[in-house]
């Protein structure tokens, strides 16, 4: 239980428990583990509902509306259906790897919520290297995907897994660089400290960083328009071709849990996390998370899927240089203008973003300019 041993900072709320209670901070661990699991599972179901209904309305459809009022029970009906399905394991599959892969793909999504604050200090472990932990743990799910591709003993699964890994690994870099510029402003790696530093949401101070993080985050969790490895309207399934029943449900869950993770991280880093007037902090957090996910659904409905060369070119030729320049400019701003009012910096940063994007729209080319982007 590495998380627990690192969780040295017990939040104020739980210090009201008698210190001599049996178990000590194991209570803290237990309560927050339950909260996190319930939060992830509930919000994943909410996400599936929002995605299907929202996408339906954007395509002038209604979306699922039969199971329960307004189709609210549709995710539950789907879950029951999928759990009752036969669990098929290919004869020549690497059984242990095949069995472990969905677990390894899903757990990182749960583990990341250990450091995401739902309220001031209300988190499982207030690590002082919180965001580094997030970056490290979120990469682990890639291993699960590769295990799924390898363990299926199917060349198409393996190809899908390899393509996914190529995309995820290249999009990790702009993600980390965008995070670094936020960390520069906040001056801390702890997510709770980053939220406390956001008197003005960092989306205003870091518009370009937000854009880069959003694009790269969407690509890292393979959401449309970057979902060409498991394009559900074109391919069979990519890495989870050979999965069915409970294990497939696990991958499905992992997909949405990762979307939840990315929207929670965006909320914490750029939208001032749980902070907000009137409503209780945890409600602000949930509302912001859902709003971020809505934007993901919105872009998914709007944008067509990109090709693999466009995907890689976007990561290396567009996001990476812009993220580096953004980090550089942020560093200069912090060194030279530390005392400037943020209300001056906001228009400056927006102007920098506009200029950089306009410039890169001229620089960004595929195939030495022979291929139309």
């Amino acid at each position: 239980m590495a998380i627990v041993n690192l969780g040295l900072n017990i939040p104020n709320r739980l210090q009201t428990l008698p210190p001599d209670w049996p178990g000590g901070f194991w209570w803290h661990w237990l309560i927050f583990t339950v909260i996190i699991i319930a939060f992830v599972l509930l919000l994943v179901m909410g996400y599936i509902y929002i995605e299907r209904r929202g996408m339906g309305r954007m395509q002038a459809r209604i979306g699922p509306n039969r199971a329960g009022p307004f189709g609210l029970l549709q995710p539950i009906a789907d879950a029951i259906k999928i759990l009752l399905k036969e669990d098929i394991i290919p004869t020549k599959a690497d059984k242990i790897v095949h069995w472990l892969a969905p677990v390894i793909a899903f757990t990182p999504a749960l583990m990341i919520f250990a450091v995401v604050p739902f309220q001031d200090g209300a988190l499982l472990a207030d690590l002082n290297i919180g965001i580094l932990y997030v970056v490290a743990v979120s990469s682990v799910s890639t291993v699960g995907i590769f295990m799924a591709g390898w363990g299926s003993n199917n060349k198409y699964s393996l190809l899908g897994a390899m393509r996914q890994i190529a995309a995820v690994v290249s999009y990790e870099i702009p993600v980390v660089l965008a995070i670094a510029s936020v960390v520069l402003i906040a001056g801390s790696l702890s997510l709770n400290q980053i939220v406390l530093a956001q008197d003005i949401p960092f989306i205003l101070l870091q518009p370009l960083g937000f854009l880069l993080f959003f694009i790269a985050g969407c690509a890292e969790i393979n959401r449309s328009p970057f979902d060409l490895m498991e394009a559900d309207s074109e391919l069979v399934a990519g890495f989870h071709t050979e999965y069915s029943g409970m294990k497939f449900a696990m991958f499905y869950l992992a997909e949405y849990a990762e979307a939840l993770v990315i929207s929670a991280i965006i909320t914490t880093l750029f939208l001032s996390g749980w902070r907000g007037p009137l409503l209780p902090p945890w409600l602000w957090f949930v509302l912001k998370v859902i709003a971020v996910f809505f934007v993901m659904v919105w872009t998914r409905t709007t944008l067509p899927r990109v090709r693999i060369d466009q995907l890689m070119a976007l990561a290396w030729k567009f996001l990476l240089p812009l993220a580096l320049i953004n980090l550089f400019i942020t560093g200069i701003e912090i060194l030279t203008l530390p005392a400037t009012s943020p209300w001056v910096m906001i228009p400056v940063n927006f102007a920098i973003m506009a200029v950089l994007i306009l410039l890169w729209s001229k620089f960004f080319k595929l195939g030495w300019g022979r291929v139309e982007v």
Partner: protein
Amino acid sequence: MKFERYGKGIAKGLTVTIRHLLRHPVTSQYPEQRLNVSRRIRGNELIWDKTRCTGCATCARTCPQGCIEIITSVSTEENKYIVDKFEVDTGYCISCGLCVEACPYEALFMGYAFERAKYRRGELVQTNEMLLASPERQPSGYMHPEIAAQLPKQTLLLEKITEEE
């Protein structure tokens, strides 16, 4: 310097989708809500007018599928053919409407109904009285403008959207 790839297209697309979100969806909840079909629909079945039919079997000859079978006998006192058996295998019917167009005495009509799925193949074969018009079996206006004039107008999804807006 021309700038055109800075994300203008993406922004345009995003506004289109958000406008669709606020618009009334075109989906109709089929078993509960029904749209009026085209007045000239070529439905799943044929309607036969026994009194007008002379048993000339033009329909049977023109049918590309050969799914109309007609057997007649001669009535000497009335001096005309009597149709003993008029059988249509609607399972083979491709709803082309050629029999309706070919009938010289306007004794055949396409059906207006479209929900004619059956559980058994045998039930698709319709004979004599089963082919007559009835309240459930209205003739459609195909090839018969005078019938079309009496049928309700087709509901278009386009109109459905604009009227709800």
